[in-house]
């Protein structure tokens, strides 16, 4: 049990990255009842945005905060634009179509992004620029906290704080919540639902952009299929917390990250990915609405 603290730190760090991605799934689901399969590929594109930004600006060897901010901004902006375009071009024309059609469109967009990635960037993995040093900053008897863990946790917490203020303290945040509860009535109040839906995609994608840079720093490998597994797990985390529920997504993601690290630590890393799906199946059986989700009858 002496490694527990170490696994806990690793799990928290992993979980906070899942949270950033899970929020995008849950926000879009909350407003459109759509599982945006392309979200994980937006995440991948974010990683490429910052990879290429670093190359063009020659940031590879310049370590430090300014470089980190540049990477973060290029990924956030790239993802935000991509998320906006996906909704505008692929989902909006299907606004009144059956849900299944939109779901199929989402799978299509996901594949499109993956194959575009493969043909434009190539299949071979690229090395993400490590612009921040990963040095031990805190050493206990049985654990070490690395600087990147602190960056991941700090950036995630800050992002969640900003998101929280935006959703609960601003006019547009109130409109987002109103549209997700009743789009028609919100439009009677003067809210343009299309605007709010665009904003939701932009915001959710930007969060994935933050996530992709944090992952890039921790596991510096960029390739066109990198979004698949992490996207799947983030999605499961969102379902675990109760899809459509923001705090649920964060809770689910942290639980997911923690249990994954514990499995790696105490069982075997072979079961790492199996765990995610095990959790999904268990949730679907015992608590279909998720930990913090409202049951279907309550959501009018």
């Amino acid at each position: 049990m002496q490694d527990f603290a170490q696994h806990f730190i690793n799990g928290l760090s992993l979980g906070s990255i899942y949270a950033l991605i899970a929020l995008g799934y849950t926000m879009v689901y909350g407003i459109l009842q759509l599982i945006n399969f392309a979200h994980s590929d937006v995440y991948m594109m974010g990683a490429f945005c910052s990879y290429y930004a670093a190359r063009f600006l020659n940031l590879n060897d310049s370590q430090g905060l300014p470089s980190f901010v540049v990477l973060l901004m290029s990924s956030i902006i790239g993802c935000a634009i991509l998320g906006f375009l996906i909704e505008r071009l692929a989902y909006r024309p299907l606004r009144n179509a059956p849900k299944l059609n939109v779901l199929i469109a989402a799978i299509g967009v996901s594949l499109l992004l993956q194959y575009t990635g493969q043909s434009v960037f190539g299949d071979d993995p690229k090395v993400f620029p490590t612009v921040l040093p990963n040095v031990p900053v805190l050493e206990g008897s049985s654990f070490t906290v690395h600087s990147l863990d602190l960056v991941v946790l700090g950036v995630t917490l800050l992002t969640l704080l900003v998101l929280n203020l935006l959703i609960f303290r601003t006019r547009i945040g109130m409109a987002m919540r109103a549209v997700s509860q009743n789009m028609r009535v919100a439009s009677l109040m003067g809210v343009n639902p299309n605007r709010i839906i665009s904003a939701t995609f932009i915001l959710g994608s930007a969060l994935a952009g933050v996530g992709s840079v944090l992952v890039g720093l921790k596991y510096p490998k960029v390739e066109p299929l990198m979004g698949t597994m992490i996207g799947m797990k983030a999605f499961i985390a969102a379902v675990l917390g109760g899809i459509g529920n923001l705090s649920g997504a964060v809770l689910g993601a942290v639980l997911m990250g923690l249990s994954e690290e514990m499995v790696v630590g105490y069982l075997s890393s072979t079961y790492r990915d199996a765990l995610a799906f095990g959790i999904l199946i268990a949730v679907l059986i015992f608590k279909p609405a998720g930990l913090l989700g409202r049951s279907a009858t309550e959501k009018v």
Partner: protein
Amino acid sequence: MGTDRSTPLLQVNDLQVYYGAIYAIRGITFVVNEGEIVSLIGANGAGKTTTLRALSGLIPSTGKMEFCGKDLRKIPTHQRVGRGLAQSPEGRGVFPGLTVRENIEMGAYCRRDVAQIASDMEECYQLFPKLRDRRAQLAGTLSGGEQQMLAISRALMAKPRLLLLDEPSLGLAPLIVAQIFEIIQRVNKKGVTILLVEQNARMALKQSHRAYVLETGRIVLEGMGHDLLENDQVRRSYLGV
């Protein structure tokens, strides 16, 4: 406002609505004058809610709809409230996960005059003191009557010229119904024109200047509220006497 209630605010000509193959509104023509309370009565499924939905642009329709002399069709749904056309929808439609206060704020979403909004909110709380006590509570946890009060307050926050009310008395105790109608009168005296949809025909006719009777998508009768109260056909079909 001192109006003679003869200037048309809303003019509807040959309005028709289809839900797929269902011909719900079969060409109705009516007018609501500035300063009036006009009610639209009719049995279940007559098309009252459908008419209001068409006016707000929530469903496609054909025919002419003119509001303040402007063609409503040229104004997208979400901009109609800003032009002075507010609706309190059937079944209240409060946002259950927003607080009472946020629901009221949503009513003023189309407005920018912050100071005036605050004083209008205060006015709503005076109209419905219950809402003030519950302002931090989620709207979904209010009772049906409280939700109705909230829905009306929310619509008033838009400072509409024309207020569309869909069954404001539905499911309320008689005492509350009387209170709601009293408030409708008060709001009207302040210059807000009202188009009222009601099942409670007796109450609606008593409170309205004029009324239209809708039957399976057609207007079959129209007249002054108190005249219709005396009308044999209305008494038999809608007042149960």
